[in-house]
C-alpha cells in the first residue's frame, strides 16, 4: 500500500509540509483524532470487557479497578476469564504477564516516538505517563509522526492518552449496565471493529519495514496458535520482526565490513545506497 492518504484525520494541506507544533493546535488535533474511531473503538472494547467481567463475578468496583490498573485489554480479559475458570493466582499472574508482554516493546517504541530522552523527562515521570499507554495510543502516535513536530509529540501523547483513559473508564462503567440494553450481536460487531481498526492503522504506517513486520506477525500468529496456544503471539512477533529485519541486518554488516576494509569516508554514502538496494 504505497499511498499515504489520510482521510481519518483531515488536516489542512499545508500541515503535511509544516508539522504542527503550536500546543493548542496539537491538543486540538489529538482531541479530534480521539473523537473518531479510536475513542469509539476503545469505549466499546471496555464495554465488552465489563460484560466479560460481570459474567466472571466481578463487581463494578473490581471491573473499574482492573481497567484502571491493568489498562491493557488482553491482560484484562485473561484475568477475568481465568478467575471465572478458578485458576490459581500464579497461573493468572503468568497469563496476564504473557498477554501484556508486548507492552514493553510498545513502551520502548513510544518513548522513542514521543522523544522523552530529547526532552530529558525524568524516568519516574516517563513511567507514570507510560501507564496510560494503550495499543490505540501507540498506533495513533506512529501514524501522526511527521504531522506533529517532534517537540510537540509529548503534548499530543498527553492530549490523546489521558482522555482515552477516561473514555475507557466510562466504557467500563456504562458497560456494566449497558450490556443488558445492547443486543449481544450488535455489541459483538462493535467489539470486532477494534482489531480491524488496529490492523488498518498498521497498514497506514509510513515506514514500509514496519508494515511488512505487521503482515508477517499477522500471518504467523494464527498459524502458530493451534500448535503453541498463547505463546503464538510472542513467537510470531519475534520471528516476524526478525524475518523482516534480516535483509537490513545483513546489509548493515556488509556495509560495516566494506567500510573497515577499503572504502574511504567520502564514498561511504554511495556504498550505503548500493547496499540498501541489494
Amino acid at each position: 500500500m504505497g499511498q499515504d492518504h489520510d482521510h481519518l484525520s483531515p488536516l489542512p494541506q499545508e500541515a503535511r509540509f509544516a508539522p504542527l507544533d503550536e500546543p493548542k493546535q496539537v491538543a486540538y488535533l489529538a482531541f479530534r483524532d480521539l473523537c473518531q474511531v479510536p475513542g469509539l473503538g476503545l469505549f466499546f472494547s471496555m464495554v465488552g470487557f465489563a460484560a466479560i467481567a460481570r459474567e466472571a463475578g466481578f463487581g463494578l468496583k473490581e471491573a473499574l479497578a482492573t481497567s484502571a490498573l491493568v489498562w491493557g485489554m488482553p491482560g484484562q480479559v485473561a484475568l477475568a476469564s481465568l478467575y471465572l475458570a478458578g485458576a490459581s493466582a500464579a497461573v493468572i499472574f503468568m497469563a496476564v504477564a504473557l498477554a501484556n508482554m508486548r507492552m514493553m516493546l510498545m513502551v520502548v517504541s513510544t518513548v522513542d516516538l514521543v522523544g522523552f530522552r530529547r526532552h530529558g523527562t525524568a524516568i519516574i515521570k516517563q513511567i507514570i505517563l507510560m501507564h496510560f499507554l494503550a495499543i490505540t495510543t501507540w498506533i495513533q502516535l506512529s501514524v501522526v509522526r511527521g504531522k506533529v513536530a517532534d517537540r510537540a509529540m509529548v503534548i499530543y501523547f498527553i492530549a490523546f492518552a489521558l482522555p482515552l483513559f477516561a473514555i475507557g473508564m466510562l466504557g467500563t462503567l456504562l458497560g456494566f449496565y449497558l450490556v443488558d440494553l445492547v443486543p449481544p450481536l450488535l455489541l459483538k460487531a462493535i467489539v470486532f471493529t477494534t482489531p480491524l481498526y488496529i490492523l488498518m492503522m498498521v497498514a497506514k504506517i509510513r515506514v514500509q519495514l514496519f508494515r511488512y513486520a505487521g503482515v508477517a506477525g499477522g500471518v504467523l500468529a494464527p498459524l502458530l496458535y493451534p500448535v503453541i496456544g498463547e505463546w503464538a503471539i510472542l513467537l510470531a512477533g519475534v520471528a516476524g520482526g526478525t524475518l523482516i529485519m534480516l535483509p537490513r541486518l545483513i546489509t548493515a554488516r556488509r556495509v560495516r565490513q566494506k567500510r573497515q576494509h577499503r572504502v574511504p569516508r567520502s564514498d561511504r554514502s554511495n556504498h550505503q545506497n548500493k547496499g540498501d538496494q541489494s
Partner: protein
Amino acid sequence: MIDASSPYLWLLIILAFIATDIWRVLGVLLANRISPESLLMKWINAVAYAMVCGVMMLVVVHPSGLVASSSLMARLPAFAVTIGLMLWRGNTLLAVSSGALTFFCLDLIISP
C-alpha cells in the same frame, strides 16, 4: 456465583497490575539505554508491530471473549472486505465500518 467483593479477587487484580506494569517499567528503562537510530531500536519496533498484528489477527481467526461466539465464516469475509476497501479507497473509516457491517450481517444470518 463467586463473592464479588472477595479480598482474593482484589489480590488478583493487584497481581495483574504488577504483571502488566512490570513490562511498562522495563520498557522505559530499556528505551533510555538504546540509541533511537540503532538497528536494535528498529528491530524492537518491527517485533512490536508484528506482535500487535499477531494479537489482532488472533481475534479474527481464533478469538476469545465476546467475539468467540461468532463463526469464522463471518469474521474472515469481514476482514477481507476491510482489507479490500482499504487497498481500493484508502479510507480507514469506510473500510472498518464496512467490515464491521459485513460481520454483523453474516453473524446475524449464521448464528443460531
